[in-house]
């Protein structure tokens, strides 16, 4: 299996002279699931958007296999991104979206689950929040990109759907590197290999739940 390394370095971002991200560094390889925790406004979503190239920053270096990706077209060919809010075109059907994004060889395997069978003929606008989130995460996990950035994949989901999506991430992460952020820190701790806390613009590696207490993330 092909192994790839993603390095994100020197990310600096300010909003109105307030430093949000200060020289952030992160490294992951194929098979890694890295969790990013942080309070509201700590810059987690901004960090992922900067990596994906949809948010400007003062400085950023995105490297895949030691090659610096300068252009957006190079970044989006290797990295996929799940936004906090739904991004699938609402006028399309689930069937159409799958046919546009998943290769014919993978299509049968992709659709071979009960939830997708139920929603297969529906329009995107007819899906519930949970169904939509599940579809979006699964589409990203099955695409050709080497790394995926998931911004709040568990947001607004029932415990059952959270478990389904967690299993989906674990099952498919062996061929990709995954960075995910969410406020559901218990689920993050459960599925991630490494955890970082974003605080005051810096990222701190977290080794135990006690460290989250020390940093004031949880009480």
């Amino acid at each position, binding site marked *: 299996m092909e192994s790839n390394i993603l390095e994100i370095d020197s990310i600096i971002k300010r909003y109105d002279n307030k430093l949000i991200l200060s020289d952030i560094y992160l490294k992951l390889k194929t098979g890694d699931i890295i969790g990013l925790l942080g309070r509201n406004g700590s810059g987690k979503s901004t960090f992922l958007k900067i990596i994906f190239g*949809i948010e400007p920053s003062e400085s950023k270096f995105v490297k895949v296999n030691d090659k610096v990706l300068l252009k957006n*077209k190079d970044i*989006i060919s290797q990295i996929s991104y799940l936004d906090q809010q739904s991004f699938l075109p609402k006028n399309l059907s689930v069937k159409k979206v799958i046919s546009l994004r998943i290769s014919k060889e993978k299509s049968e395997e992709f659709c071979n689950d009960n939830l997708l069978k139920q929603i297969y003929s529906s329009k995107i606008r007819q899906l519930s929040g949970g169904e939509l989130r599940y579809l979006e995460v699964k*589409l990203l996990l099955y695409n050709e*990109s080497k790394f995926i950035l998931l911004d709040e994949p568990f947001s607004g989901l029932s415990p059952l759907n959270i478990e389904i999506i967690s299993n989906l991430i674990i099952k498919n992460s062996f061929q990709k590197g995954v960075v995910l952020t969410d406020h559901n820190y218990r689920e993050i701790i459960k599925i991630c290999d490494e955890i970082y806390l974003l605080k005051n613009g810096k990222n701190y590696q977290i080794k135990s739940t006690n460290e989250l207490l020390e940093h004031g993330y949880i009480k």
Partner: protein
Amino acid sequence: MKNKFFLTFEFYKKLFPLIFIFSVASMFFMIFSLFVFVSVFFSFFISILIFEVNNKREYIFYFNNGITKYQLWIISFFINLSILLILLSIWRVIF
């Protein structure tokens, strides 16, 4: 590549209703050059502008398929131009 074209065509389909409305409206002035300008440039850029305002998040769907915003715009522009040229050719054959 084939998939990228179909994806861009889906993007263009979202722009088309507005392009069509502006183009038909411009026909009432009975000025050929105005019709071409409105169909090719004006309505296209207005529909892109409206997409930017109303559906900005949908760009992420195309980015996740490896298509940049500029690729979407350029390919859609040429799809629009091709449709107009085909329609004009049919018009000339009939009339």
